[in-house]
């Protein structure tokens, strides 16, 4: 039960982080100053 909770919480956060990274343009290039 504890293992399941720890796995679910950490993997949910990792998955959400990965999804947010996919949507971020600055993952591959820092935006230049205008």
């Amino acid at each position, binding site marked *: 039960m*504890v*293992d*399941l*909770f*720890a*796995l679910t*919480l*950490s*993997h949910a*956060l*990792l*998955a959400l*982080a*990965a*999804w*947010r*990274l*996919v949507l*971020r343009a*600055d*993952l*591959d*290039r*820092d*935006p*230049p*100053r205008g």
Partner: protein
Amino acid sequence: MVDLALCLFVTALLVLSLKRPFLAVLAYLYVDIVAPQKISWHLLASIPISLITFLAAFGLWAVADDKADSRFTWRQGLLLMLLVYCGATTLGADFPEEAADKWAWVWKALLFAIFLPLTLRTRLRIEATALFMVLSAGSIAITGGIKTALTGGGYNALYFFVQDNSGLYEGSIISCVAIAIIPLILWLARHGTIYPRGPLVRLFAAALIFACLLIPVGTQARTGLLCIGLLGVLMLRTVKHRFLYLGGAAALALVAVPFLPASFTARMTTIENHQADQSASTRIAVWKWTLGYVKDHPFGGGFDAYRSNRLVIETRQVEGSGNQTDIETKTVTDQARAYHSSYFEMLGEQGWPGLALWLWLQLSGLWQMELLRRRWRKRGLAEGAGPELQWQAPLANALQQAQLVYLLGAAFVGIAFQPFILMLIGLQCGLWSYLKRLDQPAREAARRPGLDPGPVPVAKL
């Protein structure tokens, strides 16, 4: 069910990496730290998932990632020298089969540490690497922390996901790593942009730090307690209100002691009395043996050279005091005893040249992070400096603290090639290279006054 979920998670990361190649690097970090193939019984356990993510990370970077801003730093050169040197000692190892087994994972960990900085071209990639390392190791800390809070844990009795005693699933190693990541957790909570600063992030960070602090209690690893003590002292350097911090730490320790399991307190008291403790006495005997061994083998005996040792250890137990003192002496023989210290592990296995290379790698990391901390702290404190100038010095500081905690823990645990720590070194190299590149236009302009530095990435502003 867990099997399927883990398999889907890794697959999703690899699919997303087709769109963003850097995610394959993060997938490898995750697989190497959590080792989901050990948790899984069927799907992931039956495929070489580590190799697949390793190849995906390299392959996608080679084929699809921009390499214009990638730089090879001299510390990566040190890693490469260490890799070649370890390969050479493996060829002439005292125990060829055992040495080959260790070499099979060491070369991969070293190669990945050399490769990682080449991919860290943006601020977000540096942050994402730190986040994946923390959350991956955090998954083990969360389960260990909760179990410790519920049951108190016990020496060699606290299990994390699997009944395994290797990698981060070994008690002393996770104790050291759990404390080492605390500075990174704090940095991510304050300067993170993937999970921006807010009440939920603060709550999670606080809970994760608490879980990390519970790991040495649950595993009853004495190394972990020393690491907590060192981190507590190191934090004095950066906390805003030192007296408040000292008072809070003392109050917390006083409140926590009554709640600590009796077995934990009993084990921790053996730190002072190493002569009565067979484990500690054996370590000292192994270290003495190693010093003698390298007199005859200055270039080391290759991986697992400790297998040739045979030790006779005397332990002394003193009971009572004054005229009532009883001294009980026991003689114990032991053989093929592991080094229980990264310094002696390097010395025995790789000899003086290997130890020198390894120490150079570690100490240069401390020095580089110190330089970055000082340089960027000034900029962050300058008038008008925004958050874009304030994340660099705290990250360098966090990486330095993490490494110092590791170097203390490494004195009592054989983790010279622990992949997590090599990733940390890769992250240091990446940060050093990235910030040096950001400074390049300003340095060029200073050298040639007429030259326009041109547009500067917003991460430097």
